[in-house]
């Protein structure tokens, strides 16, 4: 009886350890602008967290510290048990496990859609071409772009490009997905196709941190809404609480602006 008990205990502990843990993170830009002011946030496996807040509040900068695209000066960030430090040797090992989707898609224009998706698994994970091709095919099918696999990104619409970008990030089989305003650069009629892909991804159990202003998506998909303002987290709540009964005046002000 002793053995199963300890296993259960270990499993409980494992899920209790957040996969993303930011503790008192401070960041100043080169011009001394204090963009992150002692932020702490924990994200657990399988959780979907939506970061909202006015522009300039530091949301994007904050999630970009999770894969070390941005450095920070004080505090700690621990991703899946590994602390990100300025002098760390193998930052690529973290980035492999953290997928990112950008506002401007950032697809590689000189590669075809399928090559965009295959590149990192081959170059970083060392997969064979056929392995990479088969997973790229699966992912492109999942995001509904398989019939465009041989085209170049410039030949696709914005919504299609963003779905390819999601497939490209997923091809690395990351443990965490970061979305940095993924629909902000899209024409309105293309927002939905991207949100649908994100919604399916959330339902599959992916850990996601999304910076977005899509209220419908946040309400339906998020486990937790985090509101940032002036480099600080001012409110953390479930979508129900947040949208129906925001507590902080900054949240109320923000919601009145985006919902009007």
């Amino acid at each position, binding site marked *: 009886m002793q053995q199963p008990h300890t296993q259960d205990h270990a499993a409980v502990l494992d899920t209790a350890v957040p996969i993303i843990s930011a503790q008192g993170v401070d960041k100043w830009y080169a011009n001394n602008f204090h963009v992150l002011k002692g932020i702490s946030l924990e994200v657990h496996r399988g959780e979907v967290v939506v970061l909202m807040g006015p522009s300039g509040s530091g949301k994007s900068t904050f999630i970009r510290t999770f*894969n070390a*695209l941005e450095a920070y000066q004080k505090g700690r960030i621990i991703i899946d048990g590994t602390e990100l430090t300025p002098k760390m040797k193998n930052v*690529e*090992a973290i*980035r*492999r496990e*953290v*997928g*990112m989707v*950008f506002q*401007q898609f*950032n*697809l*590689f*224009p*000189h590669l075809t859609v399928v090559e965009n998706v295959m*590149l*990192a698994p081959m*170059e*970083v994970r060392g997969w064979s071409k056929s392995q990479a091709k088969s997973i790229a095919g699966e992912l492109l099918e999942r995001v509904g772009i398989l019939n465009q696999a041989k085209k170049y990104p*410039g030949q696709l619409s914005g919504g299609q490009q963003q779905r390819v*970008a999601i497939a*490209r*990030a997923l091809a*690395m089989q990351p443990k965490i997905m970061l979305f940095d305003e993924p629909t902000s650069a899209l024409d309105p009629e293309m927002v939905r196709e991207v949100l649908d892909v994100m919604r399916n991804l959330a339902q599959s159990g992916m850990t996601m941190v999304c910076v977005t202003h899509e209220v419908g998506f946040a309400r339906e998909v998020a486990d937790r809404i985090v509101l940032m303002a002036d480099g600080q987290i001012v409110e953390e709540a479930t979508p129900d609480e947040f949208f129906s009964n925001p507590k902080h005046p900054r949240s109320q002000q923000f919601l009145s602006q985006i919902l009007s």
Partner: protein
Amino acid sequence: MQDFTLANILANLLIATRWTIALSAIAFFGGGIVGFIIMLMRISPNPIIRTISLIYVEIFEATPLLMQLFLVFFGISVLLGLNLSAWAAATIALTTYSSAFLADIWRGSVEAVPRGQWEASRALGLPYIKQLKRIILPQAVRMSIPSTVGFAVQVVKGTSLASVIGFIELTRSASSISNVTFQPFLVYSMAALIYFCLCFPLSLWSKHLEKKFSYEG
């Protein structure tokens, strides 16, 4: 005194043209190799390496090629006690000159690749060398081809300066022939025509490439 026919003059000029072409080719490809290394230094994350390469580029860009030729030709013999041939001096001077300009052209192209391309490849976990090789350089090369070919024209014309240190190429040969024939206008016109025939196709090609790459995206 020997009479020079038009065909005679042309034949002599064309023989010397071989050396113009050879010197241009060596300077361009040698300059390309050195220039590629300098370009990598220019975009290095290390500020000391960046500064060293910047100084290198600025020195060669901000002094006349003619001075560089003199300094290599006379300087190396004074400083190192070596007697450098005109051929070697011209090769060294034109290679370093080309390397500085090509490094600058290519650095500009690398910097014209949007920052998001670096970020996306970093976010996927690609190490720096692979980011450069697979993502940044392929895009930079496309952008730099027109200006690189355009610079080849400058190199061909630049080789004419090697005549002043006694290297016998097209210009030097033209001046020798005109000294004998007393027909400088005719001889230099023919030399100019030969330069034109070398450079004009290059410059047309450069313009064609510029159009070709600007329409693709």
